[in-house]
Each structure stands twice: as structure tokens, then as C-alpha cells.
């Protein structure tokens, strides 16, 4: 047996992060501050952006279902965090990023994009505003260096500004699932939330303490469920993880790895950098046109290219479903009649829905024409249906 595609999340299009080669577990890579806990918990590891991160703790399907029905706890400490402070911080981010970050309120969060001059996507980000002059930018681990470099380069000309890469000092734990709020509330060492968690809205955040150590809690996530992301200094991360697990074990909380994180975000129609997003992708092609604020009065990097738009007929991201159990995977072709009209960027047998789902870039003309589409699954043509994203949407609370 050998591997066709063995990795939950590549660094770049088509670039496999792991293979079945046995040396993958060599301890030459960076490890999370929670690594010993994961080893003790029986995790399998995958190399992700130079980090050894848990891919699963035994059953990725069980972890997926736990997040949909109860809760899962993820270590995503490999993510990059950049603190942006100063009187010019808001104006700087309005220039450096695609959105209007100056418009969000204190402790509000916003999904945004870092574009290059050609309108391509350097990274997708979540930005938390922590005060009038203080923002916290969270980037993908694999894009830490280009994001930090771009932010520093774009800081030129802003005098009252400091951009500090805090990634090495901050750990990130996500608790995701319908019972996640009750788990945080039952964690007695979490105190002093400025906003009670039951009043904290989606994409807002609050300061708190964990046993005296400052903690940032965002009601954010990457699973399509209600959930929270908790930022803390690396020295307290293991204690925070243990406290959350203790509070959650009776509520169905289990540790979950990157494999389930990938199927969860896929069902939720959330793009993954390197799959749905990249330097060669305009936001509008990925369905992220709304993330780029062209009503901003100020210039921002990529604006000219975005206003010109992609060429006519540029492929657009769609959802595809198929029957049976064989899933279309990244890089598989999509056909209409005998013409290749698209390419899959992510796909899996959806654990929640029970049928295969995929995201694909396809020629817009074939969608408008309603032509029957097929996915080429290793030589077999399987009929595919275009559906609107997301594939899965949680019921309102």
C-alpha cells in the first residue's frame, strides 16, 4: 500500500506535507508547548508547516462527530500571532489588509485577507481589535514569514506604529462544538471575563484570566460549530489544556487533531490556504469578494488589481457533491462532456452528511449552462452536482 494523498493540510498547492515514510516522526521539527500531552494522549503526528502537530488521537471520525455533537479541543499553537499597536494601527491595517479594520469595535474580530499588488492572496487572517490602538493579527503557520515580512514592509511611512511577531510566545487552544460554552464556564480557573460568555457574540472576544494569567477568548473557529479560541502564553498552555479537558470530559469533550479539523472546515465551506486560496487566486473567485472593502476611501495594497478584477471567465469556487462513497480529492479534474472544466481543491467523504463533498474551481460558463459535471476519480467518471456552500450549516442556537 502506498499513499496517494496523505495530509490534511498542504503548505502550498500540490505540496504534500507528510508521507507514510517512517522518518516523518523524527524530532527535528518544532513542537507545540502541548506536545508531551499529545504524546501521552496517543496522538499521531503530522508535519505541518515545520511543526509536529497532532493529526488524530485514534479516530479522526470520532473526533469529527464529537465536535458536531458535543465538543473537541484542538491545539493550534502553530498559528502565527502578530501584535499591531500605536496611534496609526487602525489606519495601517486599513492600508495593509483588504478589509476596513478601523471600523470594528473594541474586542470585535474580523476575517480578512492580506493581498499582494496583483490582487493575489498572501494569507487569510483573523484580526481581533483589543483597543483603540491595539490589534492582534492571527495568520496561518505556513505563511508566518511572508505575512510578517509584508506587514513590516507596509509599515513604512506609519510613524506611530509597532508590529511585533509574538508567535513564539503565544499558544492557541480551540474548543469547538455545541457544548463548548458550558465547558469554558465550568473551567473554574477561567475568571474575569469582561463579557459573560453567554453574551459574547460570534466573532467577538473578551479578556479573561486563567489562574491569574491574562487570556484572550475569541468566539471564533474553523469548524462550522459554535466555539472558542483561547490565546495564552506558552508557559501556561499545558495547564489551560488540562483544565479545559477536566471540565469537559463529562460533557463529551475529546481532543481532536488536524485531520478532523480539515473535514470539519470542509463541510462548513471554509477555505484552506494552499487549497482554495493562494497567490494566483483573486478573492472574488473564492467567493470572498465581500471581504475586500472597495468602499474604503484609502488606498490599500492590491486595490488597483482588485478593481480591474480577474479576467473574464476566471474560474470560480463551487461546492460539488457526488453519490456513493468515493470522494473527489485535491487536484482531481472536473469534466463537462469530454472537456476539463475545473479542478478540485479539497474533497472528502463527509462524515456528517455521509456522502462525498468537494470544493472545486470551475469555468463559470458551465455552471450557467447547467451542463452535467463529472469528477474523474482515478479513472472513473462520477457524476457531480453543483451545490451552494456551505455543505453543512449548524442549527441556530
Amino acid at each position: 500500500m502506498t499513499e496517494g494523498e496523505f495530509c490534511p493540510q498542504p503548505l502550498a498547492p500540490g505540496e504534500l506535507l507528510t508521507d507514510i515514510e517512517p522518518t516523518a516522526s523524527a524530532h527535528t521539527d518544532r513542537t507545540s508547548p502541548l506536545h508531551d500531552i499529545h504524546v501521552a494522549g496517543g496522538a499521531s503526528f503530522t508535519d505541518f508547516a515545520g511543526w509536529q502537530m497532532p493529526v488524530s488521537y485514534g479516530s479522526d471520525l470520532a473526533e469529527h462527530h464529537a465536535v458536531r455533537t458535543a465538543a473537541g479541543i484542538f491545539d493550534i499553537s502553530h498559528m502565527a500571532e502578530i501584535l499591531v499597536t500605536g496611534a496609526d494601527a487602525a489606519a495601517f491595517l486599513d492600508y495593509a489588509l483588504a478589509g476596513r479594520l478601523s471600523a470594528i469595535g473594541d474586542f470585535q474580530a474580523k476575517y480578512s485577507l492580506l493581498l499582494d499588488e496583483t490582487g493575489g492572496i498572501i494569507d487569510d487572517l483573523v484580526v481581533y481589535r483589543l483597543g483603540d490602538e491595539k490589534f492582534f493579527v492571527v495568520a496561518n503557520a505556513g505563511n508566518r514569514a511572508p505575512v510578517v515580512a509584508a506587514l513590516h514592509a507596509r509599515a513604512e511611512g506609519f510613524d506611530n506604529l509597532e508590529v511585533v511577531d509574538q508567535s513564539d510566545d503565544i499558544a492557541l487552544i480551540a474548543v469547538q462544538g455545541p457544548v463548548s460554552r458550558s465547558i469554558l464556564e465550568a473551567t473554574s480557573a477561567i475568571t474575569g471575563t469582561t463579557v459573560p460568555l453567554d453574551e459574547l457574540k460570534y466573532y467577538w472576544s473578551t479578556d479573561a484570566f486563567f489562574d491569574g494569567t491574562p487570556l484572550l477568548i475569541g468566539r471564533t473557529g474553523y469548524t462550522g460549530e459554535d466555539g472558542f479560541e483561547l490565546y495564552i502564553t506558552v508557559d501556561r498552555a499545558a495547564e489551560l489544556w488540562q483544565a479545559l479537558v477536566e471540565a469537559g470530559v463529562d460533557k463529551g469533550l475529546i481532543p481532536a487533531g488536524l485531520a478532523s479539523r480539515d473535514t470539519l472546515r470542509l463541510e462548513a465551506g471554509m477555505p484552506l490556504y494552499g487549497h482554495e486560496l493562494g497567490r494566483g487566486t483573486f478573492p472574488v473567485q473564492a467567493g470572498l469578494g465581500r471581504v475586500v472593502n472597495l468602499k474604503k476611501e484609502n488606498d490599500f495594497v492590491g486595490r488597483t488589481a482588485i478593481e480591474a478584477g480577474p479576467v473574464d471567465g476566471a474560474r470560480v469556487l463551487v461546492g460539488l457533491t457526488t453519490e456513493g462513497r468515493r470522494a473527489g480529492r485535491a487536484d482531481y479534474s472536473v469534466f463537462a462532456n469530454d472537456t476539463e472544466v475545473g479542478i478540485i481543491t479539497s474533497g472528502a467523504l463527509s462524515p456528517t452528511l455521509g456522502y462525498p463533498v468537494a470544493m472545486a474551481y470551475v469555468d463559470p460558463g458551465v455552471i450557467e449552462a447547467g451542463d452535467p459535471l463529472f469528477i474523474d476519480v482515478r479513472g472513473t467518471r462520477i457524476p457531480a452536482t453543483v451545490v451552494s456552500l456551505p455543505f453543512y450549516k449548524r442549527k441556530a442556537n
Partner: protein
Amino acid sequence: MADVTTLQYTAEHEWVLVDGDIATVGITAYAADKLGDVVFVELPKSGSALAEGAIVGEIESTKSVGELFAPVDGEVVESNDAVVSDPSLVNSDPFGEGWLIKVKFTALPTLLSHAEYTALVGE
């Protein structure tokens, strides 16, 4: 579950149990663990002729696809219907109920011993 120390192995992470001229074939626990939860298995039908090294089936998990290589020349005498209807057997009992095919072989290549396979995967 078979005694793993008496099985033979391939570098493609398959195990082979030889009994007379019949070889039972499955994938190793190491491979099953690396694949993750198996959700789909496609196997060659009884009577299929196999050539060593040819791709004869697929083992698909939520996150990846593994190919089943024929470890021997021969003819399939039985494929495991139970694992087709319940692919999770590959994870729960890879050396036992999760076996994949039985092959009446005509030639048996040099395979890896348990010690050699263990050294290969570094576990």
C-alpha cells in the same frame, strides 16, 4: 488476530500470511494508523488474476487514498466482503478481521520478516 511476528511484509505496508499455496493479504496496523479512519475499500473479485506489484484495490480514509498492491503473482480465491461493508475493520483489527484478499499464488517473492519490517517503519 494473526501472530504478527510470523507474518511476512512488504515495503508497501502490507502483510502476507502464507498457508500452503494460499496467501492472505492485509495492510499493517502502521499503515492503517497512518491512513486514519478507513471509509471505503475496493478489492479485486474472486477469480481475478494478479501480477506482483500491480495496483489491485484501494483503501480510502477520510483524508487520503491508499492503493493495494498485489504482493504475489496468482489468483484471488476470496476477497473480504465484511471489510467492504464495514471498512472500519481495517482500523480495528488490521491483522485479523480486517484482512483484504486471499490469493492462490504461483510464485512467492522474497518478503520482509517482522524484524525487517519493524526496522523499516522505525517502531
